[in-house]
């Protein structure tokens, strides 16, 4: 039975909802607006909301002077590279725990989760020294390794929760029909696992894209992704607001769009299945 909802209720809720949403979103909106201003307009008091001289020059300057594309490329390499490696390692593990669980599966899962609890600062010193001595500082391969290991527990967990939902009867049926484990994987399991894997990739790319502890500490120029690139705007001479805004808008736009598509997976991935 549908509940009766009064018009007043609906109007009040809508007004309040939009107001709260607007306020929370406002810093992002303001940043995007500022990115289309001249530096003079960006600083002006009272602030210019819509009726300023719109310009796209900041975007051109950001690319020209600071090689934005180089850092964007690094972000893409690190985010997708670390995700790809994590998938290769995690899919077999998650498959095995979901479909051939043993007495120790539960403990293994919890232990994996506990490795994610280790604060990165606890291993900063040795990782930094190992990277320095191994020539891995500011390299793609080094950063991909760290990001991959940092996110591996989440990837295994997410895949595990998705794989567990695949009905086992189907596998039994396939086995009855004489399918080998290899065939079972490719023809039965893979098609059913694709949505879960896609969600996992989405969340992991977002996490790796925004990861700012390791990237800030282990990269400077060559492998520096957008997090490090934006941090360079914190120096006093870098404080050109319109350019900062343009660079920031470019840095967050792709991941914001991806993020909007992944709301549900986000809850699942970040709570390790504790809230669904």
């Amino acid at each position: 039975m549908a509940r009766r909802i009064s018009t007043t209720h609906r109007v009040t809720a809508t007004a309040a909802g939009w107001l709260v949403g607007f306020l929370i979103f406002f810093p992002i909106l303001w940043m995007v607006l500022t990115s289309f201003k001249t530096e003079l307009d960006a600083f002006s008091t009272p602030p210019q909301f819509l009726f300023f001289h719109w310009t796209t020059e900041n975007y051109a300057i950001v690319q020209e002077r600071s090689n934005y594309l180089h850092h964007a490329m690094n972000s893409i390499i690190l985010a997708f590279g670390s995700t790809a490696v994590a998938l290769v390692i995690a899919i077999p593990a998650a498959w095995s725990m979901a479909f051939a669980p043993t007495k120790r599966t539960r403990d293994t899962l919890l232990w994996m989760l506990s490795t994610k609890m280790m604060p990165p600062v606890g291993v900063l010193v040795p990782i930094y020294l190992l990277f320095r001595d191994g020539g891995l500082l500011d390299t793609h391969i080094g950063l991909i390794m760290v990001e991959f290991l940092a996110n591996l527990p989440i990837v295994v967990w997410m895949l595990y929760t998705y794989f567990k939902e695949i009905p086992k009867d189907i596998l039994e049926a396939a086995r009855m029909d004489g399918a080998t484990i290899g065939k079972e994987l490719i023809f039965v399991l893979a098609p059913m696992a694709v949505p879960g894997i896609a969600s996992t990739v989405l969340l992991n790319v977002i996490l790796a894209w925004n990861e700012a502890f390791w990237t800030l500490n282990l990269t400077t120029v060559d492998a520096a992704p957008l997090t490090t690139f934006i941090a360079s705007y914190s120096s006093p001479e870098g404080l050109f607001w319109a350019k900062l805004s343009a660079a920031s808008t470019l840095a967050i736009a792709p991941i914001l769009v991806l993020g909007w598509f992944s709301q549900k997976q986000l809850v699942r991935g970040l709570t390790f299945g504790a809230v669904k």
Partner: protein
Amino acid sequence: MATQQTRTLGRVLLAPSVILLFLWMIVPLGMTIWFSLLRYNLLDPGTESFVGLLNYQYFLTDPAFFAALANTLILVGSVLAITVIGGILIALLMDQPIFGRGIVRLMVIAPFFVMPTVSALVWKNLLMHPVSGLFAWVAGLFGLPAIDWFTNWPLLSIILIVAWQWLPFATLILLTALQSFDEEQKEAAEMDGTPAISFFFLLVLPHLARAITVVILIETIFLLSVFAEILVTTGGGPGLATTNIAFLVYAQALLQYDVGGASAGGIVAVVLANIVAIFLVRLVGKNLDA
């Protein structure tokens, strides 16, 4: 029924993940523990010597440690309070019949996807700047003096930025939990004429208890390690005003090159995080059995 063959295969498939994670956890952590027992400064190579627990003694009696510990606790506690209370309120609002709810949801969740360096710099400059920032202009509209956020309220400024980043996370999880609330219970309460306040405290809040616990535990893990926001806005200052444990260890290691001292600090951070982690792992473990 798992056959012997499947079981062996399962172990082989599981091995790479387990071995890699084990190495990733044990090797650097073992090195940190070892370094923490040495006098070891990068500016003074070749003079490493075993000093036992001296680094811990220095680190734990350093006034900077107490300042950093206090800042860490204030930062974590305040952000938790803001995001949990704010998250409950916003989740309750979002659960109402809002026209265009999908779009409102997108706006509310957006800050979570903004990388920490961007949110910190945008807030510090575009919003919190004492002269040209938007907050100063808004204060002016009400005839109030502009606040010089990062000079007078540095830790509060960081707290606001971090809270803005985590509010969507709390909201989203609490909203997910709220939507699983039994419609019939809601209707029954309405028919009985239960006042909204007691309905909330007697029925809704207990229903959300588990989700709230999850939010608190997971946020705490991440909030104990807040770093980028501090690095790009205040650099831990003025003085030690915004230095948390994570930043203190970073400064000791990569600014003062004191490997021994920083390692001792790192171990202290690990111990702190573990206290929280134990509760979280237990909670998730219970859920696995259910």
